């Protein structure tokens, strides 16, 4: 199998990555997170573009890949309200990319140092990316096998009608049947697409489905570059011959000639193998951690993130925080927009761990304002999948004294179905 497949994947992905910085401008401008000064934030985004380009052309590959991974992960870590599954996916891909010998074919490194050049690579380097994609799709599919998604067609029943002005298709979204069809198709697609892609006979059809599916979801929902990432990433399932043909064309176009190959690829060392084994065991198990929490996953979101649960629910909340000065017993209501932007407020209002974080922020803010040991409580009303909103957490509990941890949050109230 030609190692360059990996490179192509990186190439396609990075091509999309270049448009990302425009989305990333959201990252700065909040006073309440410790971000670097704007200049450095810009610098980091420029560095991401540069290192990504180096990774693509294979110049100082290893160093560039490490730096790219670190920088990108840093931008992700700044603000959890910006968590998106596909950013997490990209982070993981970047991490895996560090270990690969993707610079040993069709790259500047191989040109500069012909000892590196080779035209074969152990199958493992492809396999890890295929496995990661398989996990992403299949787990996203498993997550859709639930009562609300399949039987009630929620949340698509809420989302689709809002798209009724889309040209040509708009009308379809107002039909009652449409959300059901989309829900079932989406579940089957996610669960099985990897199998169809692996089989050479079904592959062309499967890939056509990939394109249609992701472009459609891209049109319907505001999900940024995700469709393009997946459309390009799934090319890794294509045959060796397909990639060789494509690369040959590309090489001709770029006037790239392969150096004389003197070395066979290195075998993958044992420690690296063990490391990947641990990595994937973690990836396979981590998404199931929600089972350990007694609460309703969609309601409490304990164990929700990093589990490939995408577009699964319509959830919105109104969170009102109250700060009390214990010395005077006077309680005041927080105007959230004085501290958060609308995106942050929206994300925070439905997720208990973020509610707690914001409460702790308010605590330190008002301590600095001269209130000793302020107590913070929050009245949070959340609506899940169009049900009437109800209290998410205990509105009387003092959040200032609660510490966040992995244990189940007993201050989350159970959801009651009416």
């Amino acid at each position: 199998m030609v190692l360059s497949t990996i490179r192509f994947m990186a190439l396609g992905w990075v091509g999309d990555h270049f448009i990302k910085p425009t989305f990333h401008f959201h990252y700065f401008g909040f006073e309440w997170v410790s971000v670097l000064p704007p200049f450095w934030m810009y610098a980091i985004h420029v560095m991401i573009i540069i290192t990504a380009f180096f990774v693509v052309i294979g110049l100082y590959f290893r160093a560039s890949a490490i730096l790219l991974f670190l920088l990108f992960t840093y931008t992700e870590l700044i603000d959890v309200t910006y968590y998106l599954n596909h950013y997490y996916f990209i982070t993981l891909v970047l991490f895996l990319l560090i270990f690969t010998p993707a610079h040993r074919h069709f790259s500047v490194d191989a040109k500069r140092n012909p000892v590196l050049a080779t035209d074969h690579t152990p199958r493992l380097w492809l396999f890890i990316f295929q496995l990661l994609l398989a996990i992403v799709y299949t787990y996203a599919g498993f997550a859709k096998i639930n009562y609300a998604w399949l039987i009630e067609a929620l949340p698509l029943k809420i989302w689709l009608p809002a798209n009724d002005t889309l040209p040509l298709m708009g009308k379809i979204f107002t039909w009652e049947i449409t959300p059901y069809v989309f829900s079932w198709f989406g579940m089957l697609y996610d669960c099985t697409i990897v199998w169809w892609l692996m089989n050479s006979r079904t592959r062309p059809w499967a890939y056509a489905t990939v394109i249609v599916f992701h472009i459609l979801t891209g049109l319907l929902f505001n999900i940024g570059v995700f469709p393009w990432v997946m459309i390009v990433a799934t090319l890794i399932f294509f045959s060796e011959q397909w990639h060789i043909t494509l690369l040959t064309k590309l090489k001709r176009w770029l006037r790239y000639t392969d150096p004389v190959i003197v070395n066979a690829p290195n075998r993958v060392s044992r420690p690296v193998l063990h490391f990947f084994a641990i990595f994937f065991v973690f990836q396979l198990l981590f998404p199931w951690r929600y089972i350990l929490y007694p609460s309703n996953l969609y309601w409490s979101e304990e164990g929700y993130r990093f589990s490939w649960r995408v577009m699964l629910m319509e959830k919105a909340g109104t969170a009102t925080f109250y700060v009390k000065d214990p010395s005077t017993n006077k309680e005041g209501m927080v105007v959230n927009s004085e501290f958060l932007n609308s995106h942050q407020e929206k994300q925070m209002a439905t997720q208990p761990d973020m509610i707690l974080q914001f409460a702790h922020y308010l605590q330190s803010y008002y301590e600095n304002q001269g209130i000793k040991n302020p107590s913070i409580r929050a009245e949070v009303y959340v609506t899940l999948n169009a049900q009437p909103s109800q209290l998410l957490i205990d509105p009387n509990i003092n959040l200032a004294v609660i510490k966040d941890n992995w244990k189940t949050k007993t201050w989350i109230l159970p959801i009651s179905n009416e």
Partner: protein
Amino acid sequence: MSRLKAFFLSLILIISSSTIWLTSCSESEISKPDFDRTTMLQNMADNLIKPAYSDLMNSVLALQTATTNFTENTTSTTLKEAQLAWEASYLDFQYTNAYNFGPAGPEGLQKAFIEEVAIFPVNADKIENAISTGTYSLTDANRDTRGFLAVEYLLFNVNEGSSSVVAKFESASRKKYLNDLMENLRSRTEAISTAWNTGFSATFIANNGTNVGSSTSALYNEFLKSFEALKNFKLGLPLGKISGQTHTEPTKVEAYYSGKSIEMLKAHMQALENIWYGRSKSGIDGIGFEEYLQNVTGGEALISATKMQLENISLAMDAVSTDSPLSVQIQNAPNTLDALFTELQKNTRYFKSDMSSLLGIAITFSDADGD
């Protein structure tokens, strides 16, 4: 593998055939009654927004006539006429309070209409300074020196009464400042009113999607923002309800100098209720958010909850007397006002997260609130 494939193939076959069967049923059986956002936008534009700006335009012109008259013939009679005209025009303004998008939205250095003409509290020192030095700009960042509430500051005096106002207007520079403010207010109002009555109405109705930038999204977001401003800044802040406040701040009410805060608050809430119902000022009920909600999943429950809460707000609002100004009642009878604040707060989730979630509209405001 082949068995697995057979399984999936048959599964797909079952799904697709049942789909075809279901879709072949008559469309009317399976599709909901269509809600046409265009009709809602049309009703909003024709029966709520355009009349609101036309009314405002007329009353601002009347106010300008009255203030010009007052500056030319400065007596307590002409002052009284100007004061009444001010009250009428600012009441009309409350009916445009929620429409800060399109021609009333921010553009370049100019902020939204409400921020340009209705900032409160105004800064008395800055206004007096502008009058005495005669150097001021009506386009700079000193928005707390102009607009309706700066005109109010000039025309009313809470403590010393009308005679002191008339006496102060002996000053030519004070007259000039008032006339300049009024000219500024007239031209800003006219620009928006004209835009709505010429091309913008059609643009507004045609932009009938739900994404960011669509008319429904703009209308909804400004509606919500207006409601939150009413609750937090017209009532919560002077009542001392906001975190970090240690006591009430009665002078921070809207329309402090005229003492007409409660009338304005009531008109503002009425205007917001009208938007939700799709109701005109004269009470004719058309297509609004209420009808829109009737056509979405979970809408019925939210409609009844919202209606009940609007009723509670209305009762709490009626309990507030108009006999004495809000700033006085904050000190004398805070309980009635606390109750109103609580009822308004209870409604927030219905307007905010529940409504946006059901309608699939994104909450896009926030950055303009803090400053």
